[in-house]
């Protein structure tokens, strides 16, 4: 069953075409990698999917309970509510808030009480706040962050900030999770731990995951399928083995072979 169907989306900034007629399709439950050299348009593609940019042309469809939702042109918060969550390449936590508050904010769509209840702190406010906090702590336990719930996000070590970003994205209860370089700046041990966590949450939350990554050990290890982007175009897709031996991919990464030396 298809969960995300991207058809020929294009985005240009002035004369630069960052994403050119890129198409990709994700099946439910898949773990797919998106790789490509620097400046290939991977993050731009994520920004198009999550509504930070609007595509110049092309369509993005998300399928939820076999109902099709057109994502192009929707505001980011609507796209998040439709079930698509993300993390950021350069960590974008709410730095001066606590770990718990970071996750609580992402639970916003579960909040049922209105403005009046929040002004007067009526009983329904207290009841729901407690439920939300309990849910957040359950989520933080997966990342071993529950003891640090009252720390400010900016005071966490780098690796834990990355974990918190994933926890925060999960709090929005997504069906599709986009991870933008989750292992950037991590050492091999941390990357191995992250690999386990990604596998774990995928099982537990029944997720489809699309991840951008430069760490090939992570990509080749956990991704079932890989899309390769270069100059904004999808130049190859397939299983890790197919990608490893694909001539165009090698060219994109290492450059063309020069024959007449």
């Amino acid at each position, binding site marked *: 069953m298809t969960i995300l169907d991207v058809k020929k989306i294009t985005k240009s900034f002035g004369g630069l075409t960052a994403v050119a007629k890129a198409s990709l399709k994700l099946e439910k439950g898949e773990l797919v990698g998106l790789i490509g050299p620097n400046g290939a348009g991977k993050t731009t593609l994520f920004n198009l999917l999550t509504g930070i940019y609007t595509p110049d042309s092309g369509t993005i469809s998300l399928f939820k309970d076999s109902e099709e939702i057109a994502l192009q042109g929707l505001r980011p918060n609507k796209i998040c509510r439709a079930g698509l969550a993300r993390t950021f390449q350069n960590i974008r*936590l*709410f730095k001066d808030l606590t770990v718990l508050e970071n996750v609580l904010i992402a639970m916003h769509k579960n909040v049922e009480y209105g*403005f009046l209840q*929040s002004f007067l702190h009526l009983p329904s406010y207290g009841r729901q706040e407690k439920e939300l906090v309990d849910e957040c702590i359950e989520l933080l336990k997966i990342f071993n962050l529950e003891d640090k719930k009252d720390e400010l996000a900016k005071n966490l070590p780098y690796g834990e900030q990355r974990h918190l970003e994933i926890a925060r*994205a999960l709090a*929005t209860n997504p069906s599709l999770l986009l991870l933008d370089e989750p292992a950037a700046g991590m050492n091999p041990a941390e990357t191995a731990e992250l690999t386990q966590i990604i596998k774990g949450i995928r099982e537990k939350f029944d997720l489809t995951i699309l991840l951008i990554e430069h760490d090939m050990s992570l990509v080749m290890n956990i991704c079932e399928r890989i899309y390769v982007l270069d100059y904004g175009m999808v130049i190859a897709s397939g299983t890790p083995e197919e990608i490893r031996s694909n001539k165009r991919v090698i060219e994109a990464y290492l450059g063309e072979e020069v024959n007449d030396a």
Partner: protein
Amino acid sequence: MKKLVTLGLTYAIIQILIMTNIISDYLQATLVTVCINIILAVSLNLITGFTGQFSLGHAGFMSIGAYVCAFITLRTPTIYGFLIGVFSGAIAAALIGFLVGLPTLRLRGDYLAIATLGMSEIIRIIFLNLEITNGAAGLNGIPQFVNWTWMFVFVVATVLGISNFIKSAHGRACISIREDEIAADAMGINTIKYKVTAFVIGAFCAGIAGALYASYFYFIKPDLFGFLKSVDILVIVVLGGLGSISGSILAAILLALISTYLQSFPEIRMVLYAAALIAIMIFRPQGLMGSKELSLEVLGKLGNSLKSKRGRV
């Protein structure tokens, strides 16, 4: 429970001081100014300190509340007229806040500041040129209904309302916009809705403050609500700490104290006042309270640590 007791005691002590005339009429006017400034500063703090939207138009909203309340109480000089006046003033200010906020809140930082500044100037000029507002001469003889009791009720209601709001999910949504608007949006927060909401609540409270002002000082004119008034409120907010409600309250009280004390040196009063502001900003650049809150528990802890220190010595 402790909160209720403190609030009750504060009210009772000042009420007794007023009744026994220890707080003279002059001091009482200062007290009312402090209360009005508290409402203004706390509501601007919601917009600027918590939601992170730099607004320079707070005096504009205040003037709407003041004029609407003045009209209504001039025509129906009863206590009901006064209450209806206060709420209509607040609602009118909130409505204008909504209409102005919807287009301008797409702007960021300095641009928003200039847009809101322009808005408050437009409001002032409209009041200056209308027939019914009596132009530059202003409205006179507004019946006085505000006393310490009413003042106290309105200050407590607005401050508690706003601090409760901040501690709710809706308040957290506002704070997340200040922290990182793109991330907030990506986490499902409707950032436009919450920016406008904060703006409307802030305008509503500023309207209340304006109405109370009109009703206590029985005279208003457009000049009172100019650019400088907006800056005065912003100074209180920044001095108290962006994102601290108790900071705003403390700063409003402190500035009134400094200003009252300096009355004895009329020639160099404003120089000293400015020097005091500069000194506070040099030694506490984050404001008196930073983004922390002063609460009874914190005071209790402070007291305990002082006691234990003394015990050791």
